[in-house]
């Protein structure tokens, strides 16, 4: 009677050797559906655990430090150069129309609405979802997760919920930093490459943004944080095949997490644009 993917059950029914293509495809489909079900179960339990006691505040703070503070260097460095590249690329087009002063508007909207959240999501997935998957995977293969369960601790509450909460809280902050540093990079490029005034750049950038842009820009990171944490935890806690399996889970966490963030981004953008038309 397994009510969590962590509660391993034995074989429910002995599988006969698959002999036809249909059976092979059928088995693959069943495994995929079971994986989605397990992922949904793990995510649902983690969300429920955030809102019920006991809480692991120390673990949550440690994860906030790992995901938030630990990601600062890559976010700041990447953000600066993303802003710089944005300005150089857009200005090369605006120069043809003599409208280089519009670069501040374009860079601000693109960064806040789209590039800031997406790049932050992808970078933090690359760094943290893989870290989470490898850490939890290593704990699983060395029986530390079983030891935790044997001592009466729910791994979902102790391991998954703090990582999920930390990622959901830290992602908007990291995105805000990415946006700001990106604008700084854009400003530097505008001043030194296009000979624009820094004050003019910032004034246009700030004026270009409205509340709907900020809503869109800070809703996406919450969803991306959810995705990267749950995918990292799921891949780590379903490792099969020892240390080699940990390696596969780590790679898989990066790939699946990144793809899911890009797919979710498309749907969230459509939803945000629809809502901004209707509400704002």
């Amino acid at each position, binding site marked *: 009677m397994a009510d969590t993917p962590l509660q391993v059950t034995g*074989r429910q029914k002995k599988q006969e050797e698959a002999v036809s293509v249909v059976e092979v495809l059928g088995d693959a489909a069943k495994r995929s559906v079971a994986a989605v079900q397990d992922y949904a179960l793990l995510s649902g339990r983690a969300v429920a655990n955030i809102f019920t006691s006991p809480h692991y505040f120390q673990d949550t703070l440690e994860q906030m430090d790992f995901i938030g503070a630990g990601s600062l260097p890559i976010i700041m460095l990447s953000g600066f150069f993303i802003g710089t590249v944005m300005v150089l690329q857009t200005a090369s087009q605006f120069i043809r129309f003599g409208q280089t002063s519009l670069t501040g508007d374009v860079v601000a909207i693109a960064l806040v609405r789209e590039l800031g959240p997406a790049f932050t999501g992808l970078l933090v997935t690359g760094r943290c979802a893989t870290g989470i998957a490898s850490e939890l995977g290593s704990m699983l293969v060395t*029986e530390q997760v*079983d030891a935790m369960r044997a001592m009466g601790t729910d791994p979902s509450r102790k391991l998954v919920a703090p990582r999920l909460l930390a990622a959901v809280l830290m992602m908007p902050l990291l995105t805000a930093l990415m946006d700001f540093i990106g604008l700084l990079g854009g400003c530097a490029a505008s001043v030194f490459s296009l000979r624009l005034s820094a004050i003019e750049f910032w004034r246009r950038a700030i004026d270009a943004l409205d509340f709907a842009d900020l809503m869109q820009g800070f809703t996406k990171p919450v969803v991306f944080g959810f995705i990267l944490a749950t995918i990292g935890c799921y891949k780590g806690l379903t490792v099969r095949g020892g240390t080699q399996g940990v390696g596969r889970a780590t790679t898989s966490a990066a790939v699946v997490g990144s793809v899911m963030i890009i797919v979710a981004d498309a749907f969230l953008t459509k939803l945000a644009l629809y809502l901004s038309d209707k509400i704002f």
Partner: protein
Amino acid sequence: MSTPAKEGAGFEPAIAFKDVWMGFDDGDVLRGVTFQVQERETLILLGETGTGKTLTLKMAAGLLTPDSGSVVVLGNEVSGMRESQLLPLRRKIGFVFQEGALFDSMPVAENVAYRLREDGVAEEEIEPRVREVLQFVELEDTLEQLPSELSGGMRRRVSIARALVNRPPIVLYDSPTAGLDPVTSQTIITLILRLRDLYGVTSLLATHRLQDGFALANFHFDPETKRVVANARNGNAAAAANAARTRFLVYRDGGVYFEGEPAEIANSEDAYLKRFLV
């Protein structure tokens, strides 16, 4: 030559397996296993590698659910409980994993204190209890060391300390001497023996070494001299009681091949059992 499991003469067994089947995609590992462990009894679970000893321990702790059959621990039908219901029960069970399964990012003191913190024990009470239990396993100098800095035998002893820190009535040992040299193995067995005789815990010990079982059956801890002595040399009544409280269970081909007293297995002419005596 399977012997039927002995009934508890009116006492509810601490652990009871009834017709337990468990397997994975490549076949059944356990086929209808039935046995009982009475309170304060030590059951030595013998078997070759892959015969399902670890599976049995994990099912007793509710870490695995059998395909069919019943597993009852301390009066709870473990095989029918949900994970959330099992968590409180597991706090009454100590589990010593084969490789220790210590949390490798925590120092020894934190590993041992883990269960107490989970139980909400006051901080000022935790340190003396951790020191006491580490003293019991003679590792009080390793408080701040990480598991990676310890030898295999020391890790096993920390694992025992962690399992007994909240004085559970049942302790499950998964091959506690596997891969250790004879001297360290003897140290571990002595610890298990002291734990049994001082605290009266019910033990289920999986091993492939018959000598571990005989050591538990033939020796006892004398609290007066604070030494481990042979049953024949000291305190006939206590010694006889200890010997009687140790039984053997041998797995073969997924089933119970033998169940009985130390003397029965020692005097057995069965070719398969004799393989363990070598």
